[in-house]
């Protein structure tokens, strides 16, 4: 249940080891610039990454709810399971909020650009 959130982060790690487009000739001259990390890793852009991040956070919240219900109904979950699950869900939400803030900030910075 916790393997999913890293999915949104992995491409960011990968892009530091990727060569810039055009260096190896695979991106031909005249081809539109493709930001690193968006080709060959099975995603199409920030919107998709954000959607997957949202889904991961939603999964964390869902599993946290399931553990809470299991604990309340005597279903075998323990207190530490619940505390860890709720903490993970909280951290996931905070991470998502940070990503949203940064993206919004970047967008507003561009919109303030005098043209």
């Amino acid at each position: 249940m916790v393997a999913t959130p890293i999915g949104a982060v992995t491409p960011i790690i990968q892009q530091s080891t990727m060569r810039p487009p055009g260096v190896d000739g695979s991106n031909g001259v005249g081809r539109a610039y493709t930001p690193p990390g968006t080709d060959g890793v099975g995603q199409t852009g920030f919107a998709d990454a954000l959607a997957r991040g949202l889904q991961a956070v939603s999964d964390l919240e869902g599993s946290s709810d399931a553990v809470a219900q299991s604990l309340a109904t005597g279903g075998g979950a323990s207190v530490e399971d619940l505390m860890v699950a709720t903490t993970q869900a909280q951290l996931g939400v905070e991470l998502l909020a940070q990503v949203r803030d940064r993206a919004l900030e970047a967008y507003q910075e561009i919109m303030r650009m005098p043209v």
Partner: protein
Amino acid sequence: MGAFDAMDIGRTGVGFARYWLDNLSHNVANVNTVTNPDEEPFRARFVVAGANGAEITPSGSGVHVADVVDAVGDAPLLYSPDHPLANEEGYVQGAAVDLAGQLTDMMLAQRTYQANVRTIQTAKEAYESALQIGRG
């Protein structure tokens, strides 16, 4: 590798310590359990820890209860002729529980629990400080 591995690993440690405490409570609660000397006495349950897989993955790391073994050795015989479980010689069999050892183990289990909670807290604080990078 998941995002919250340290927390999940710490959770296995907390779970193990809690199970250890459960068994210690069981042993201490049964310290006065007596049986007929012909029967198997109550024996203290010892929890054996086992490491999960060597890979640090969400499902394959941390600790698990590898085994629960019974205390060995002879249970004490107590002279109590009026006891309904006494044999012909008037003896009943006590529990094979070393109370002092159980209470010492309880301190260890409590510290184990606290130590694993601390790893979870430290991991949480580390994640929170990572989130501080973008703040402000």
